[in-house]
């Protein structure tokens, strides 16, 4: 039997949620509607020449092969960032969970990178991997003769931004997987041990399915992260280059809108970006969530 609080006053509940509604309206819906309105306009940056042009901005976007390429780059980049950070996060969490000594210290150290802002993370990796002044880049060039040049080659640049973006997200995933692992009942593992299951088998057959809600959650969060928050990494490391190879959608929005002052196209792009992430998240909830076991 669930206990319910009943409000006899009809207005009070609305009053109570009013501040939240106001904040959401002002800071979310209003700008979003403004963006939508701007996306249907062709205007100069100062707003002194405006013309309503229906969907011309959108049509121009989808006629532009480079925009379609940018979508492809974004999907590839996001999938890679999510895959790398989730698999590493899970691996490290599984290992750390088995640590016998200094558990608290290990955990704290592994969580630290999450406190680093994406832009700083980008700068750190740049100092390691820039072909002209990156310590690691110079070292591998000198010792192994590796031809590493993210300033020139798109694939190298992509690897670099994926590493920089995934690195700090590993810590985030680690925290959730750690919590998830703690919730796996010991009795199940012990029973499996008695049955003679190997550690790998135990992980795959028991721990992993029980972690599925966590896995689902971090996948959604990681994709959103890699769509939006990685802006800082791209901005500090490659600025979308070389030759547009790392020009993900959110960076293009910034470049066309903030730097290039083409507000109509930039707004249209942000609407597309928003729709894309909504669709991806809905698809995940519709198809992936079915396989998630919430109760133990």
């Amino acid at each position, binding site marked *: 039997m669930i206990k319910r609080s009943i409000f006899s006053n009809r207005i009070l509940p609305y009053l109570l949620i009013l501040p939240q509604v106001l904040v959401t309206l002002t800071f979310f819906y209003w700008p979003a509607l403004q963006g939508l309105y701007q996306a249907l306009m062709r205007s100069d940056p*100062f707003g002194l020449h405006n013309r309503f042009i229906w969907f011309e901005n959108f049509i121009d976007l989808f006629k532009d092969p480079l925009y379609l390429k940018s979508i492809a780059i974004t999907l590839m980049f996001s999938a890679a960032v999510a895959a790398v950070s989730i698999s590493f996060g899970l691996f490290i969490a599984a290992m750390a969970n088995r640590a016998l000594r200094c558990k608290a210290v290990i955990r704290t150290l592994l969580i630290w990178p999450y406190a680093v802002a994406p832009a700083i993370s980008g700068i750190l990796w740049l100092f390691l991997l820039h072909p002209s*002044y990156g310590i690691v880049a110079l070292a591998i060039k000198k010792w192994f003769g590796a031809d590493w040049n993210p300033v*020139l080659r798109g694939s190298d640049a992509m690897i670099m931004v994926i590493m920089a973006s995934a690195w700090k997200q590993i810590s985030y995933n680690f925290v959730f997987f750690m919590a998830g692992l703690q919730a796996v009942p010991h009795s199940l593992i012990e029973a499996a041990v008695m049955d003679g299951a190997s550690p790998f088998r135990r992980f795959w057959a028991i721990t992993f399915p029980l972690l599925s809600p966590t896995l689902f959650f971090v996948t959604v969060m990681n994709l959103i992260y890699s769509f939006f928050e990685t802006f800082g990494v791209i901005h500090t490391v490659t600025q979308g280059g070389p030759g547009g190879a790392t020009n993900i959608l959110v960076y293009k929005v910034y470049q066309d809108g903030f730097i290039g002052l083409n507000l109509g196209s930039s707004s249209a792009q942000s609407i597309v970006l928003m729709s894309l992430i909504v669709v991806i998240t809905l698809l995940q909830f519709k198809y992936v969530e079915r396989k998630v076991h919430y109760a133990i």
Partner: protein
Amino acid sequence: MKKGKFVLIASVLIAVFAFSQAFAAPVEIHWWHAMRSARGEVVKKMVEEFNASQTKYVVIETNKGNYDETVNAGVAAIRANKQPHILQSFEVGTQTMMLSGAIYPVYQLMKDNGYDVDWSDYLQPVLSYYMDADGNLMSMPFNSSTPVMYYNVDLFKKAGLAPLSKEKPVTWEELGDMLKLIVDSGVPGGMVTAWQSWTQIENYSAIHNIPFASKANGYQGLDCELLINNDKVVGHITRLKDWMSDKRFFYGGQKYQGPKAEFIAQNAAVYIDSISGIAKLKKAVKDFTWDVAPLPVEAWMKEPQNSIIGGASNWVLKGHKKEEYAGVAAFLEFLATPAMQEYWHMETGYFPITKSAYRSLKAKGYYDKQPYQEVGIQQMTRRDPTEISRGLRLGYFIQIRNIINEELEMVWNDTKSPQAAMDDAVKRGNEQLRQFEKIYQ
């Protein structure tokens, strides 16, 4: 009784205070700019000096971040009707500012306020960048620079090469031969360049009097089209690409950080960048001598044109009171005085904008002590600008530069041939120009 007296004195005091405030309050003039750190300090000093020189006006300078951020602050302010009197904007934004309908042209402002400015005393290639098609100055040039060639004198000597002339440019063929000797002498690379679109295409075109875009580089109409897929520019890019195969040229990035690092680390003997890089190199280079030379030219170009500028200018914005504009005009006049221009040039390395400031510095022997500084001025003023070398007037120029950068990178990493890349740059650039044109139809 006592109380009454106190009230009287107090009210008299308040009245006097209020009056003096009302009469003496100087007119406030707001200037938003993008000058930070060392340059910001110089700007602050110049403003302080203006404020101390008279009592009618007080200029309040505010740094709004880098160029992009300053322009965006201006955009937001104009939309909210809270614009400053003066807004500094970079040279690529010239067309956008000019067509905005939010500006008060500088030539008009000076005329309206009774200043008879002798524009012929200004460095013409600087002025021409900010003039309309009829030769009227739209914004006041502030910080201007031009690209030059820095080279490592020690590495040149090691390869058996004599130092280069500061006046007569070498040809690209000669530079190619020199770079070959340098690379053969064991230097990891020959040449690097910063800001490739600005130095290798925009300035290359101006120096060789090759149109960058139709309609006199866009000065005569928004319906212009890019022309950078011509044989000469493509030939130049092809040459650089060829030089890549034997390390005579290598790519260090779009901006200046990578190329500069290569030059400082002596991985490259030649480094093309803005003349305003002098200060940075002076500070950073400790273990070799370097010098400055004019940009190379083609052998067929017997009379190379002026190079074009980069930098920013001050735009006066509409919507303020008449007496405030009088102050703006007085301030712009003050900034252009030889004393201020000499100070600005010596402290920042940006050009003095008037010939009289340049002459005065020369007479004082400044360039004997700082020979580097003169290379840029001479290269930029060696000939009067033509319709083609006076500057570029393109809408969405920022996007176009970005496109050129992308296409060049695809040449450097073997994705495209120079001709294909320049053709695509023209095609993509023209799309931007058409979009921009539509706004003002």
